């Protein structure tokens, strides 16, 4: 008997059970992307003004905070956790930017401080969840209220609006001769970073393993607590960045900025095919999910449909997408039956 662990491999394996086109086309992400394309085509053809460049510009400007926060949120949800405090970090970051600008701090230091505050907010979440061991749902419901309270407490009901015009203009600026907002550049950089982190690094492999089986991940040398802690800090950091953008975009720092945004972010992430139970999801699906919600909202508003109805439509869409994926799984198991019913004598 030859040596099992050193002999040359004799068996060969197929890498994939299905051909490439099936692995690309038959995914939840692809379904959302297809739906997005259909909605864009249909809205461009039927809704007056939807196809105009200015609509595109404002659509992007409006969904950017959700797009930004959805990136780290996807990673957090894939580990099986959740962060509900993101919108409050946006508000807190906005207030920090407002008060420090008013106090005459140099703008670079103002932004840096806001980012540090966001990272600290995320680290507090991460500490309570990974070191103290509390469930993230409970922790971030608490810090949602805490950070929002701090934000409102710091600035009261007033708003700071006197920002340097260079910066407020930059937040809304477009590339010369196009309708593409400049904010898309930092978003794309972050999107690439998070996509690589999630799908092409050992750290990302750990994230998926944690979401599917925290125990097995621990036994395989994945730093479960450290990974989650890092993700909560990243979420705080990106939320603070979104807060800076939000403040400049509207030229207004208020304690109640972006209230309720966390639910839009989570809805978009789930619509994008991420499993709320963890372990499954892809970033391109999430980006399509955010854009789908944004495009629908924009098209419906242009068609003079009230925001209550828009909420109902996005809500129904979210429920349907969850139902559809379980329906698909159900049909897949049913479909195997007639195939298997043929006599199996060879074998």
């Amino acid at each position: 008997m030859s040596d099992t662990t050193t002999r040359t491999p004799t068996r060969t394996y197929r890498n994939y059970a299905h051909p490439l086109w099936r692995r690309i086309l038959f995914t939840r992400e692809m379904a959302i992307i297809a739906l997005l394309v259909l909605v864009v085509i249909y809205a461009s053809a039927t809704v007056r003004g939807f196809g105009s460049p200015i609509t595109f510009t404002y659509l992007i400007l409006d969904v950017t905070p959700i797009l930004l926060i959805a990136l780290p949120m996807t990673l957090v949800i894939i580990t099986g956790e959740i962060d509900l405090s993101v919108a409050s970090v946006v508000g807190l970051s906005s207030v920090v930017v407002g008060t420090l600008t008013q106090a005459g701090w140099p703008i670079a230091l103002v932004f840096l401080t806001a980012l540090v505050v966001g990272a600290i907010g995320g680290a507090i979440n991460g500490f309570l969840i990974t070191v103290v061991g509390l469930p993230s749902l409970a922790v971030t419901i608490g810090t949602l209220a805490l950070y929002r309270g701090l934000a409102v407490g710091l600035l009261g009901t007033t708003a700071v609006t006197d920002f340097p015009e260079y910066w407020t203009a930059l937040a809304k600026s477009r590339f010369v001769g196009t309708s593409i907002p400049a904010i898309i550049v930092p978003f794309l950089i972050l999107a690439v970073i998070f996509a690589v982190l999630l799908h092409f690094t050992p750290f990302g492999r750990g994230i998926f393993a944690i979401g599917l089986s925290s125990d097995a991940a621990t036994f395989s040398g994945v730093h479960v607590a450290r990974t989650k802690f890092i993700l909560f800090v990243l979420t705080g950091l990106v939320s603070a960045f979104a807060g800076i953008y939000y403040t400049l975009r509207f030229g207004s720092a208020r304690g109640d900025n972006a209230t309720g945004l966390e639910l839009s972010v989570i809805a978009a992430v789930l619509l994008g095919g991420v499993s709320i139970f963890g372990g499954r999801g892809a970033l391109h699906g999430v980006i399509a999910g955010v854009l789908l919600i944004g495009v629908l909202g924009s098209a419906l508003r242009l068609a003079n449909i009230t925001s209550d109805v828009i909420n109902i439509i996005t809500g129904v869409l979210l429920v349907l997408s969850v139902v559809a994926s379980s329906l698909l799984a159900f049909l897949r198991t049913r479909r195997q039956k007639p195939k298997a019913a043929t006599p199996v004598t060879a074998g």
Partner: protein
Amino acid sequence: MSTTHSPSERPREPGEPTLVLRRVAKSFGQVVALASADLTVHAGSIHALVGENGAGKSTLVKIVAGLYTRDSGDFELAGESVNFTSTAESKAAGIAVIYQEPTLFPDLSVTENLFMGRQPVSRFGRIDRKAMRAEALRLFERLAVRIDPDRPAEGLSIADQQILEIAKAISLDARLLIMDEPTAALSGVEVDRLFAIARSLRDEGRALVFISHRFDEVFALCDTITVMRDGRYISTDDIAAVTAEEIVRRMVGRDVSDLFPKQETTIGDVLLNVTGLSSPGVFSDITFTVRSGEIVGLAGLVGAGRSEIARAVFGVDPYTAGTVTLGGTRVPPNSPTAAMARGMALVPEDRRKQGLVLESSVARNTTLSIRRTLAKAGIITSGFENAAAAIWASRLEVKTSALDSEVGTLSGGNQQKVVLAKWLATNPRVLIIDEPTRGIDVGTKAEVHRLLSELAGRGMGILMISSELPEVLGMADRVLVMREGRLTADLPRAEATAEAVMLAATHPGGAADAHTGTPNEAVAS
């Protein structure tokens, strides 16, 4: 009840056939789980169903239980053709399946679990707790067991959980009981109790199917035996008419002459050195070494603290005192990554929860432990993973349709090979392996044993925890024995007899003797 188990001493008239399966087939997509299965079980008899993992036993059970529907073939219950589409239908028809690890509601009481979903109702639609409790006590009395009906199900031993399931089956008046590897996690006394219950159920005229990998149990308990291989029926015999060797030969389709291929190896320097390891309430003052080329067996009863030591040494669990060194360098506590970096690997006890990410692919599982070294400039792709996984899957002869198949769809033996592949890929110097062959088939067992021998032969130090005494005695160069959180014996291969190990594992006084004296003294005490 008779205490003799020899089948020849209890000539029996088999009753009417309770269950008849003929040419039953079942496929999942392209994978044929059952090609043609036959099984006839008579009332008033215990029928053994044996076969390697992947032979189709579980699929067969799931068809009978109503979890799967068959593609073709006949399925008759007491002479009538049946077609179950749900477990509820199968239960209503009098079929009960007792799984290896029953699933109970941990926070509910024993009685509430027993009557879940069919609570007796008194006037005004209220649950009749009194009647429920009385019925539970009556059932336990009939089974001659003592379980407090009011205690919560949480913390019940697996043996008691199984008995709860059996009690449920009896209260539903099940005529066919299927026990799927019920003894895998039971101690000797618990097995005896389970067998006594099984025999009394048989004598009441019920039909029982007993699935097990342990031949001594099959031969002690069963009246007839059916062998399956590769989804097909092979043979059915009266148990007295066949030998264990013959059954094994039919199961694997070849002779397994050497289940424990122990190689003689040169034992080298100390690799793993554990000194004074303690964790309050779990284990205390554990000191031992594992040398290069040495297989050290760690024996003891379930619950003696063996797996806990393995987890602490590897850094998954904390400990309060003691040190672990590997090759002379200190292994810091609480860090599996640090242990891995120093050349330690742990194949854990619970393959499905700790060993594998079941919903992830074969390739991802195989490479999870080496994901950092596999990355180039911090980037890892499916291509890297598939290439590495293909090498290890091939060396260990993992049977899978593709590398991106979910590992949870493989048979138990192949899952264990993936766990081994994952750890051998890290190129460890010390391998801790906890229950290397639990719940895997005879053929794969021999492969795993051969692999362990080879690894030791090439200088790896192996700490093997096992509840199967033949495995420990057959494979180990040295046997450590634990009882209630303490090491009670350190026996060289020549002195490690079944008696000496069991004495040190069970007997408070036997500890000191086994530690210092010869096995003869240990046995005599």
